[in-house]
């Protein structure tokens, strides 16, 4: 029925089947919208946040989704600036995932603030000294860049491409894509970093506070590095999931392996840096504020296991798999690596947000624990469900994977 919209040379499932799949995800979206409306209309008392837990699931979700969305800027950097030609076969998808991640982040932020209608204050009345201001500006601008990187793909839809102006626009945008990609890298380095800065500047929270290099705490650089390192793993993970759902190979192995190798080495050196930073903080920074390492991990939930899980399970293990050829080529090991890497970076973001809030600072304070309400869970899953719909629509009607036709010839 919609075959005129489907790219030439590829097969797609019948429209009713597709619509049924979208309807299932749509139900999840509706659940998320219900939570969102409750929060907007009734207020943030719909959540399980409290005055000890001002930052909770949503802020973690923001940080995590932006970290994994870092695959977009880094893949763009490798493709357009470093000129890794093979990555042109996955960069469209990376950008698509990135757009969904950043739209999701802004959506969650719009629900999370107490007065969403005043959200523009962060731009109009900006405090340039605040890390959150840097986050808001660079995040919004980068979303603009991502949309600009996504537009040429939309313009390549079979019917839209027939319009001469749109064809020319897409062509011209492709020509100068390196300029947009470079700007995107610049903006990304800053907002990824300043998300780390959000936690690292808190000198009232010894758990997350770090020493500074000029005005930037070390968490600034670690966050940018981890987003660049782990983001491509999420891109690979999403690609693999898409291949499972569509039942087709969409990207050649050499492309995946190249991205995996680069990601693996980035993660390897990042984890060494992270371990060094953790050691220095535990040995010098925290004791100067009166805290020992054990003070931050003497809780049933927040025990030392979380430190080992982040650094070893979510760091060294995926790195060691991905830096070896055998690891990259073995499907089971590759899946394990990208899943653990995604887990590792998400766990890092959880620790920097939620463990920071949970850990007591005043000597007579207690640990505070938290579990999200259904409204928080549904609104966090909302952008994921929306992302699935957008990716599905894009995959169905746009030439997202340049190698799809070659890998799946139609008889």
């Amino acid at each position, binding site marked *: 029925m919609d075959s005129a919209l489907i790219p030439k040379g590829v097969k797609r499932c019948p429209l009713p089947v597709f619509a049924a799949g979208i309807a299932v995800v749509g139900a999840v979206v509706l659940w998320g919208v219900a939570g969102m409306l409750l929060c907007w209309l009734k207020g943030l008392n719909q959540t399980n946040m409290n005055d000890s837990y001002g930052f909770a699931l949503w802020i973690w979700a923001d940080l995590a989704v932006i970290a994994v969305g870092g695959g977009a800027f880094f893949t763009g950097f490798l493709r357009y600036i470093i000129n890794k030609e093979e990555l042109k076969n996955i960069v469209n998808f990376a950008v698509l995932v990135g757009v969904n991640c950043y739209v999701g982040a802004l959506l969650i932020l719009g629900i999370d603030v107490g007065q969403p209608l005043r959200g523009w204050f962060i731009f*109009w*009345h*900006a405090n340039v000294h605040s890390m959150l201001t840097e986050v808001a500006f660079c995040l919004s*601008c980068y979303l603009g860049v991502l949309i*600009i990187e996504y537009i040429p793909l939309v313009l390549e839809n079979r019917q839209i491409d027939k319009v001469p102006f749109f*064809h020319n626009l897409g062509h011209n945008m492709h020509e100068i894509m390196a300029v*947009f990609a470079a700007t995107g890298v610049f903006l990304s380095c800053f907002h990824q970093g300043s998300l780390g800065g959000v936690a690292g500047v808190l000198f009232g929270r010894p758990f997350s506070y770090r020493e500074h290099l000029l005005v930037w705490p070390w968490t600034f650089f670690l966050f940018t590095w981890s987003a660049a390192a782990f983001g491509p793993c999420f891109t690979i993970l999403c690609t693999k999931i898409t291949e499972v759902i569509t039942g087709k190979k969409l990207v050649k192995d050499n492309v995946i392996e190249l991205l995996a190798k680069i990601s693996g080495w980035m993660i390897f050196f990042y984890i060494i840096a992270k371990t060094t930073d953790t050691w220095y903080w535990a040995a010098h920074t925290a004791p100067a504020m009166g805290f020992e390492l054990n003070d931050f991990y003497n809780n049933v939930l927040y025990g030392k296991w979380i430190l080992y899980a982040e650094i070893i399970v979510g760091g060294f293990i995926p790195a060691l798999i991905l830096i070896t050829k055998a690891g990259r080529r073995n499907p089971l090991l590759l899946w394990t690596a990208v899943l653990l890497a995604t887990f590792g970076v998400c766990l890092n973001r959880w620790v920097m947000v939620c463990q920071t809030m949970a850990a007591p600072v005043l000597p007579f304070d207690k640990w505070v624990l938290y579990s999200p309400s259904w409204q928080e869970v549904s609104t966090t899953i909302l952008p994921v469900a929306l992302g699935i719909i957008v990716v599905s629509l894009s995959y169905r009607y746009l030439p997202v994977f340049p190698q799809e036709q070659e890998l799946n010839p139609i008889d």
Partner: protein
Amino acid sequence: MFPFSFEWAWDAAHIVFMGGLWYALSIVGLGMTYCIIKATMDTISGKGGNHH
């Protein structure tokens, strides 16, 4: 955000932060403007007919 807003001060922090921001926005804006103008000119000159 703008020099005429109440919080603005011509200090190092504002110049660096806002300077960097407006620089990035200008590049993106100019890039898109170039693309749109060039696409318009190409369309007028008859390029972009039926392709694959």
